């Protein structure tokens, strides 16, 4: 086996092994040992993923100036000669990049959790689940075919469910976990259907084959349509529904804000940096297919992304729970990536959107993880998620304050932090493709800056709140260290020459700063910050006045534009009442009734028959004699008469 594949396999197996070890023997281990095992394993995996990234980008990956994919797999289930499910490893620029992102953030979260989860009940379980998640996410990104991806996709969903519901004694956490699972499961159904349709018409699951130009030429002759659209449009749209579910696109975003019930490091790992970008990764993975076969779906993705980002940004401005603000900002930023993919074209500089999307994914992972972990540190010491309970924390938590500020500046798109570069590329790509999308995203960039700084000022400035006897204090070293590392990464990752590494066709291209885009985008970010500074830095009456003047809109935004209520209405009132209740009645009374009846009569009959085998010799004799008489009567009647 190729050494590079072997390294990737080891990266994958370390968390899997940790999961088994902690899951099976976790109870026997002390908290400290569990933490050390989990963290060390992930540390090794992180180092290995850096090694493999180094080898790939600076070594074997580049052939004739183009990054080629390296893959190895074995056949697992064969349906026909061409259609078979393989299990394997697929290394190309985006999967290598994802390996780096996932292992780094996961390592940070493992490290951080040592402090954050200190003394919690179920500490070992927590680490086992974290390892399971890391394993499944890594497996997802290195999948060689869409079905393998789907397997890991579901595993990711399960581990997300387990981690959201980690505090399973809390009713809200259980509900949130269920909600997340059901919503994503529902979306995954779409994905499964898409996979089935796609594999039916293309006769393959393999990414390599699906994305190869020659193969796609062959598919153009497939003329099968369904309800006026080509089957491939349906397939890719259905697959995108799966991606939209995981990546919390409208209207399947409702689970993500609730998922914040999980422990904060989990939110940082799963619901900010890695799992939620799986949808983006999925679209990117199939990007050549999307672009060549079904460009209309790609356009749809762009508009859904734009709508989602606008919606989430507006809602984020009205939230008071700091984790929810971050959750909505995550939705908004992922939608950014979707927009970038949607407007992208294939090859060279035209593939700028693709590159920008991956770049933003990369940078966003670090600064969003940083934001979440900072929020975790704050929540850890305050004991509440509500912004009202916080204020002036910069005095107490200087390291958290600085790292949070850096991450905020990054997400607001202020140079030289990483967010600026990636967001700028996205805006350029949108600008080149579709002006409407550009203005939309540009406006969202301003809103992003505004709500992030609203959050920042709300937490770290303002007046001291009543903290009681328990004064806030800086988090311990194992919590601040990941913050510092992530903040440092946030500062430097923007300078990575991404256009030379991760591109839509593997070939490097030059990017040059488009001043016509860059200047307004920085300006709008600065404006957002300025407005937030004016309104929230010190106590002022301006915010109240503004909210009063647009009260209806504000309340709607605070209630997330009633999406949950609509869902509740649709599910509870329409589906449950009108469809499920009659079906349930039918099931309980007709089907179950039929079964119950069968059970009842056989039971009743058995009660009767049971009496026959009484063990009473006298009864036996009676029956015996009667039978002999009857039988001989029959014989006499038939034979002699």
């Amino acid at each position, binding site marked *: 086996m190729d050494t590079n594949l072997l390294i990737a396999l080891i990266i994958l197996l370390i968390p899997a092994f940790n999961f088994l070890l902690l899951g099976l023997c976790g109870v026997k281990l002390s908290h400290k040992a569990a933490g050390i095992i989990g963290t060390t394993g992930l540390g090794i995996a992180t180092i290995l993923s850096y090694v493999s990234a180094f080898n790939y980008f600076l070594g074997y990956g580049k052939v004739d100036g183009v990054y080629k994919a390296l893959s190895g797999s074995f056949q697992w289930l064969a349906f026909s000669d061409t259609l078979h499910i393989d299990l394997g490893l697929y290394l190309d620029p985006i999967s290598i990049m994802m390996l780096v992102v996932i292992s780094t953030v996961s390592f940070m979260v493992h490290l951080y959790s040592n402090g954050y989860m200190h003394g919690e009940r179920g500490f070992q379980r927590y680490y086992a689940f974290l390892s399971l998640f890391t394993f499944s996410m890594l497996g997802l990104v290195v999948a060689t075919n869409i079905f393998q991806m789907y397997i890991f996709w579901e595993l990711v969903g399960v581990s997300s469910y387990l981690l959201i519901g980690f505090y399973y004694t809390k009713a809200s956490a259980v509900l949130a976990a269920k909600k997340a699972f059901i919503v994503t499961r529902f979306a995954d159904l779409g994905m499964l259907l898409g996979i089935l349709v796609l594999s039916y018409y293309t006769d393959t699951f393999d990414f390599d084959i699906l994305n190869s130009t020659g193969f796609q030429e062959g598919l153009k002759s497939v003329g099968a349509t369904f309800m006026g659209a080509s089957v491939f449009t349906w397939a890719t749209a259905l697959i995108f529904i799966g991606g939209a579910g995981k990546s919390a696109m409208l209207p399947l975003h409702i689970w993500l804000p609730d998922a914040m019930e999980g422990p904060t490091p989990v939110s940082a790992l799963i619901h900010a940096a890695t799992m939620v970008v799986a949808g983006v990764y999925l679209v990117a993975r199939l990007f050549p297919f999307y672009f060549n076969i079904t460009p209309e779906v790609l356009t749809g993705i762009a508009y859904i992304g734009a709508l989602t980002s606008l919606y989430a940004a507006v809602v984020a401005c009205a939230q008071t729970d700091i984790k929810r603000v971050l959750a909505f900002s995550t939705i908004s930023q992922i939608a950014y990536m979707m927009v970038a993919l949607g407007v992208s074209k294939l090859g060279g500089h035209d593939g700028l959107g693709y590159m920008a999307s991956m770049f933003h994914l990369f940078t966003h992972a670090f600064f969003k993880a940083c934001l979440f972990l900072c929020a975790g540190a704050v929540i850890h010491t305050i004991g509440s998620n509500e912004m009202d309970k916080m204020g002036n924390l910069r005095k107490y938590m200087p390291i958290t304050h600085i790292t949070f500020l850096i991450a905020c500046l990054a997400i607001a798109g202020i140079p030289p932090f990483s967010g600026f570069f990636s967001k700028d590329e996205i805006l350029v790509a949108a600008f080149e493709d579709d002006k409407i999308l550009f203005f939309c995203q540009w406006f969202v960039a301003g809103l992003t800056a505004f709500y992030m700084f609203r959050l920042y000022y709300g937490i770290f400035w303002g007046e001291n709140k009543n903290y009681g006897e328990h004064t806030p204090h800086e988090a311990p070293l194992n919590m601040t260290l990941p913050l510092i590392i992530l903040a440092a990464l946030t500062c430097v990752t923007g300078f990575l020459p991404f256009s030379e590494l991760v591109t839509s066709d593997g070939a490097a291209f030059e990017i040059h700063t488009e001043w016509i885009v860059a200047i307004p985008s920085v300006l709008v970010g600065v404006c957002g910050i300025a407005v937030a500074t004016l309104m929230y830095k010190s106590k002022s009456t301006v915010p109240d006045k503004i909210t009063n003047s647009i009260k209806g809109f504000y309340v709607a935004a605070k209630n997330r534009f009633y999406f949950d209520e609509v869902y509740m209405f649709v599910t509870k009132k329409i589906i449950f009442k009108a469809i499920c209740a009659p079906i349930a009645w039918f099931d309980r009374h007709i089907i179950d009734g039929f079964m119950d009846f069968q059970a009842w009569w056989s039971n009743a009959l058995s009660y009767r028959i049971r009496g026959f085998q009484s*063990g009473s010799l*006298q009864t036996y*004799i009676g029956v015996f004699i009667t039978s002999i008489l009857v039988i001989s009567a029959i014989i006499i009647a038939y034979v002699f008469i």
Partner: protein
Amino acid sequence: MNIPMSFYIILSLIMFFCGIYGFITRKNLIAMLMSLELILNAVNINFAVFNRFLFPGQMEGMFFTLFIIGVAAAETALAIAIIINVFRSADKIEADELKKMKY
């Protein structure tokens, strides 16, 4: 010597069905055993009668009767041993009592 064979057979029939009746209705084990003796006796009579009336020159029926009497003696002795044993442990010799031995 004018008695037809069917008279003998009907006599054994009455004896036989009395035995059946007793075997089914009696609860006491010894009474059941006595009913059993009745049944065996009826069979013995049949054997003897058939031998005498139908095959006067042979002795199979008589020997069967002899053997049946021997077996009946053995069986009764054993049954009474068991009954006495049951009586010792249960202080009763009702057939219902024996149901407990199933468990």
